[in-house]
């Protein structure tokens, strides 16, 4: 091991752990500032998320959302693209899922609707990512800005559609009608009756998320396309020189990314709500950024990070119930600090750790 380099376990284990610890320490300080005991808060948080069946169910339910959006951001990251529009793509993807369910739910069982809903979500999500991708590839407009703009356009579009077109006659709240049984994913509490999931909405979409992780892993590390995506992300010039078309890779990667984000609706729209609601994505697209950063773009890392955020979301709800001064917004703060320390300040501890390991290795060399 040469000077200035770190063993893999430090790079992929210790440094992310240090960043995470820093984020949690600062979160703890915030709790102290509002006059509560951080250790008490952690206790309720963990108990709320893992202490009983229903809590675990909710944790898995939230984690499912974050796996989809985390994968979406991660795939784009591999090509060096920052897809900040996961929120909008998930939202529009939900529309595709809802349309599939509305069209089919009265005629066929759920497992026939399922593939159509998956196709609808992926297709609509990908379509929403297409224009920013095309503009980045062909016209050089920055994908970060265009995807931000498309989040807002999606939100305006969906409010219009839900409150003017999809709303059933005679109702006031902007949402579609409830899907019949043919448009509802089975809940795990009805599938695995031996385990007590309480009233939690965790459903079969969880297994879809795990399956998609395997597909993404195969795609990125075991296909020609994945190789091209990674080469383009590492060095676009070299990739172009090697005959990889930047336009093609940018557009294909963003379509995959948008499609993955679009699948999130399977969990919420088809699994939990069984109808399309305003703002159902609820910020999961942005959590995906934190998940992808923490998971270092690898499906295993993303599953772990999504579980952590699922735990925070569910535990945070319990915490807000037990200690009302710590409202659910605490989760947003923790999320912000994780993004800050694991993302933007990712290299903050690196020099110190490198110095530590250098001294350590030179000591052993002399001895």
């Amino acid at each position, binding site marked *: 091991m040469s000077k200035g380099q770190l063993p893999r376990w430090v790079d992929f284990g210790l440094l992310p752990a240090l960043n995470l610890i820093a984020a949690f320490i600062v979160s703890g300080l915030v709790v102290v500032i509002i006059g509560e005991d951080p250790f008490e808060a952690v206790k309720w948080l963990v108990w709320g998320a893992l202490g009983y069946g229903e809590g675990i169910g909710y944790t898995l339910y939230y984690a499912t959302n974050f796996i989809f959006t985390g994968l979406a951001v991660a795939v784009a990251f591999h090509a060096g693209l920052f897809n900040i529009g996961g929120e909008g793509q998930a939202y529009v993807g939900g529309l595709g899922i809802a349309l599939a369910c509305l069209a089919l739910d009265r005629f066929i069982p759920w497992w026939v609707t399922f593939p159509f809903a998956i196709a609808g979500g992926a297709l609509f999500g990908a379509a929403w990512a297409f224009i920013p991708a095309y503009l980045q590839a062909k016209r*050089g407009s920055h994908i970060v800005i265009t995807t931000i703009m498309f989040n807002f356009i999606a939100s305006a579009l969906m409010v219009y559609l839900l409150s003017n077109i999809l709303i059933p006659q005679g109702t006031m709240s902007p949402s579609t009608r409830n899907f019949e049984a043919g448009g509802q994913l089975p809940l795990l509490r009805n599938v695995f009756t031996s385990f007590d999931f309480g009233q939690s909405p965790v459903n079969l979409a969880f297994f879809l998320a795990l399956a998609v992780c395997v597909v993404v892993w195969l795609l990125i590390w075991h296909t020609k396309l994945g190789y091209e995506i990674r080469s383009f992300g590492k060095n676009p010039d070299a990739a172009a020189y090697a005959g990889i078309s930047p336009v093609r890779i940018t557009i294909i990667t963003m379509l995959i990314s948008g499609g993955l984000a679009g699948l999130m609706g399977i969990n919420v729209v088809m699994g939990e709500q069984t109808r399309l609601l305003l703002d159902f994505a609820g910020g999961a697209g942005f959590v995906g950024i934190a998940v992808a950063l923490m998971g270092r773009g690898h499906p295993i890392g993303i599953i772990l990070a999504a579980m952590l955020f699922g735990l925070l979301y569910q535990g945070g709800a319990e915490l807000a119930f037990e200690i009302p001064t710590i409202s659910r917004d605490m989760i947003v703060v923790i999320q912000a600090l994780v993004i800050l320390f694991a993302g933007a300040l990712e290299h903050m501890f690196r020099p110190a750790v490198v110095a530590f390991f250098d001294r350590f290795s030179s000591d052993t060399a002399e001895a």
Partner: protein
Amino acid sequence: MLDTIILVLDSTFRLSTPLLFACLAGLFSERSGIVDIGLEGKILGSAFAAAAAAYVFQSPWIGLLAGIFVSVLLALIHGYASITQRGNQVVSGVAINFLAAGLTVLLGQAWFSQGGRTPALDSASRFNNIELPFADALADVPVFGPIYANLISGHNILVYASFAAVPLVWWIVFRTRFGLRLRAVGENPSAADTAGLSVTLLRYRATIICGILCGFSGAYLSVAQGAGFIKDMSAGKGFIALAALIFAKWKPVNAMFTCLLFGFLDALAIRLQGQEIPGIGEVPVQVFQALPYVLTVVLLAGFIGRAIPPKASGIPYVKERT
């Protein structure tokens, strides 16, 4: 007819002001090469701090100072991450937005227990509307009278300040030594470095100015336009300002016109809600809400002119490779 036009334009000014402050804020940051998608978070943080301080000290001015202080603090976090640590500027901006969204409600709930709001401000703790001299006396003069009395007069001091800031920013960016250096580090930091300028220091100064201007924007929302802080009260204004900055091609005077345009769309949307437009029919309010973003995307696509950002924006500066 004239009355309606004046009414719409009057609210255009009010709605443009927070955009204009934030847009000018972003201009300093991006001109120095720091991409800032955290404008939204800084506005929100400042709105909360301003409302809280104005309530506690019964003074809008102390509120404004507190707003600026918090906004600059957030700007310095962004600066530390993107200048000193050379982190990803977009990621850092996202973090700032979340930090502000979470902390404002969390602290608001802990301090005031009103569901994340701050207590309503009375008129002594707000920036009130100013009647310009002779507004009443001239109100009866045809055409000019109503324009002067209802459109130009009768805004609070921050509205006037935002428009006064435009020529000032123009002068600073294009006519002072600091402005020249600022643009230099945004276009070609290594050349600026070779000329003996500190890229780090200049970029930090730009981020601090950005924080100050966002502070004005947030304080305007909660202690001038509104009377207290409401959860998520910035409601995407930071992103519209970002869009406006691109639309304005990073130029202060363009920024003013763009912010007026986007403010006008907003005012029109409110005015036209549920009304028929002759020949078109009723236009959904969402069209007006989406229009600033659609226009910006169209501009970015290069179909109406070209928006070329400062060359070095978003790229951390590394003094030398070791």
